[in-house]
């Protein structure tokens, strides 16, 4: 398999608490009374890129949305289990959900910039947090756009509408928007599926850089992509976590039959 990016991996079984960004314990989720996630337990390592793969409908997005509690926007939603982050259960009653979402950023399949200027898009989360000092904002905007590898392309048009950007630029803007809040975890739900191959490569390159700032969890159903960018990979099937290990072993010598079938393209 093609190796683009440098990787070093720790054994998942021996992760210490400091090395763990999210510790998922027996998480089950029901949407509309159908079991979408079935007793998932996994530890997601800090400052690494973890990929979620699996057929569409297997629950990847639902699992991802459990990490910032976006599932709660569904009408008929029920869950059981825990997700531990920084030593606390994010599902506890005391958790401030809005604050949690600033710590766990999310980027969606379709780029969804707000109909505002590029600058205001990046500031959106900060302004919600009550930050309004111009100098600070300027600084964070530049920094975030640099991290999202977009600065050079937009630095002269920060106050133009974000809707004028191309699809790939918009997706990077949305990433910058999430990065502006300095999240600990960044969730990417099929961030490249609406983009062309060249732009996709661009975003992949960006993603592989992001792990220096935060933990990245990326959903994709492009296996080459998962293999290229991720340190660890998890394979889900019908709401169950079938296999979870470092990407090299998962893609070269999967342990489970279902995983092998999936990555060799026998179904899905």
């Amino acid at each position, binding site marked *: 398999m093609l190796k683009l990016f440098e990787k070093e991996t720790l054994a998942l079984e021996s992760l210490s608490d400091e090395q763990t960004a999210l510790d998922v314990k027996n998480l089950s989720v029901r949407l509309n009374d159908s079991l979408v996630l079935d007793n998932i337990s996994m530890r997601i390592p800090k400052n690494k890129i973890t990929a979620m793969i699996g057929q569409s409908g297997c629950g990847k997005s639902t699992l991802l949305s459990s990490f910032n509690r976006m599932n709660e926007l569904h009408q008929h939603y029920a869950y059981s289990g825990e997700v531990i982050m920084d030593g606390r259960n994010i599902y506890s009653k005391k958790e401030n959900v809005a604050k949690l979402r600033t710590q766990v*950023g999310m980027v969606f399949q379709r780029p969804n910039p707000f*109909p505002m200027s590029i600058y205001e898009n990046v500031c959106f989360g900060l302004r*919600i947090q009550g930050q309004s000092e111009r100098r600070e904002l300027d600084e964070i905007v530049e920094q975030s756009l640099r991290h999202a590898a977009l600065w050079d392309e937009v630095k002269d048009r920060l106050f133009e*509408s974000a809707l004028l950007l191309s699809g790939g630029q918009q997706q990077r803007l949305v990433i910058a928007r*999430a990065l502006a809040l300095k999240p600990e975890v960044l969730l990417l739900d099929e961030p490249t599926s609406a983009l062309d191959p060249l732009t996709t490569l661009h975003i992949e390159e960006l993603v592989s850089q992001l792990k220096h700032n935060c933990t990245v969890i990326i959903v994709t159903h492009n296996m080459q992509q998962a293999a290229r960018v991720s340190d660890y990979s998890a394979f889900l099937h019908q709401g169950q976590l079938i296999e979870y290990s470092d990407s090299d072993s998962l893609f070269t010598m999967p342990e489970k039959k279902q995983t092998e079938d999936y990555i060799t393209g026998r179904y899905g």
Partner: protein
Amino acid sequence: MAKANKKATDKEMRKSKKVILNAQQKQAVSSFTAGLSAAILLIALISLVVFIMIKGTAYFWPANVFKVTTISATSPSDTGQVFVKSSVDQAEFISALENRLETQFSGNKASMPEFEVEQPTKVYQINLLNGDEKLGVFSRLHTQSGQYEDIQRLAKIKAEVNLLQADLRSIQDEQLTVLHRKIANLDQKNVEQGAPARLHELELFDYWQSRADELSSQIEQYSIEFTDAMGNPFRVAVKNTDTLFLPNQLSLGDKFAYSASKIFAFVSESPKQASTSGGVFPALFGTVLMVLIMAIIVAPFGAMAAIYLHEYAPNNKLTSIIRICVSNMAGVPSVVYGVFGLGFFVYFLGGSIDSIFFSEALPSPTFGTPGLFWAALTMALLTLPVVIVSTEEGLRRVPEGLRAGSYALGATKIETILKTVLPIASPGIMTGVILAVARAAGEVAPLILVGAVKFAPSLPVDSDFPFLHLERQFMHLGVFIYDGAFHNQTNTQGSSMMFASCMLLLLIVFVLNLFAIIVRKRLRDRFLRL
């Protein structure tokens, strides 16, 4: 038996008549029908606008004056001459007259009077200050110092009259009123009739009064003498005249200048002569003010109701019932709202307000009577469904992805609604409000019940505290037109003023809609695709 038979044959006939069309023909037929109905609609719309425009502009355009001489063999009282104003040319005027006579005499040629029509050049149209108009041929000017045959002197004479009037006014304002107040003061202090102070004041009063009388009689002596079509002289006091001109001798430029001044007067003056001349300013002002207050009330309430329904209300039966009720509320006849406004707002709410806050003024009501605020409130209620429906429409246009994006950046529900959803839905809210405004500007029935009157002595805004008098009755263009149409059917001049008001109303609604479209487009450009 026979019936059944007939039925059967009917069926057969229908069967045989049935034309079978292929798909292409069907499409041709349907597109033809659609095109036809669109064309009919367009024609109806255009003819409405053109009709109102022609009738309305005719009011401002100076009319021709014709001299009609009638000779009737049968009834001598019909014989005579008269000046007639008309906006058409001579040939058209004659044929219209012929038509009218024919209907009047039901085609009985023998008893029909003969008539001659000419277009005299020397006839003046005299516009009086009270809004009345007269037609006549100039004979001479009468002044204090004699008579003049030369109408050019009129300007000078008018200036003299103005000076005299200014004198008279200053005597009245600076002397007579002051003295009157002094004497009233003495009365209050029970000063004796024969007291020297009182005698002094009375003497002064008599002196100034006689000066004033003298001045008025001097002013009365200035008049213009005309002769009417029959040759009978009549006089018009100079102080009562506004303008006079020769309508049959106006050049095109003069006509435009005349129209412009008349349009200006129309939108800036009060109605005169029982709303057959003068302007519609109070009605225009009242309409705009009422609609503005209504918009201020309806926009936030409508938007909040829509936000509740769309963002907060659970997705259940009750919500859909509420939604159905809201859209049905738009179909309730407007007069029902008027009755509700009168019963609930005016009598109940207004009565309560009066008994709590204005009890010292009772039994004369302050808010317990129809007025501007109740009218605005009633119209707000009437237009609420429009605003709710179009706001919800706007909310529905907000892409789910943007909401999710906002939540994912740590925004709470209310922050998401205020910062992301509302700006994008604002064209919808805007559309609703403008539709509501256009509706309220043209509504009549409920307004008559809750505060619009055909003549209001004062505007609802003036220099007295608190400047905006929400409890006052007001004039409204729609009511003004309605009233005009009812009371001036026989008076062609009056109906023209009515058409002019119609045109103004149409123009207001049109401008509002245009404004709405522009604003909506700009907001949409800003918030959706560029």
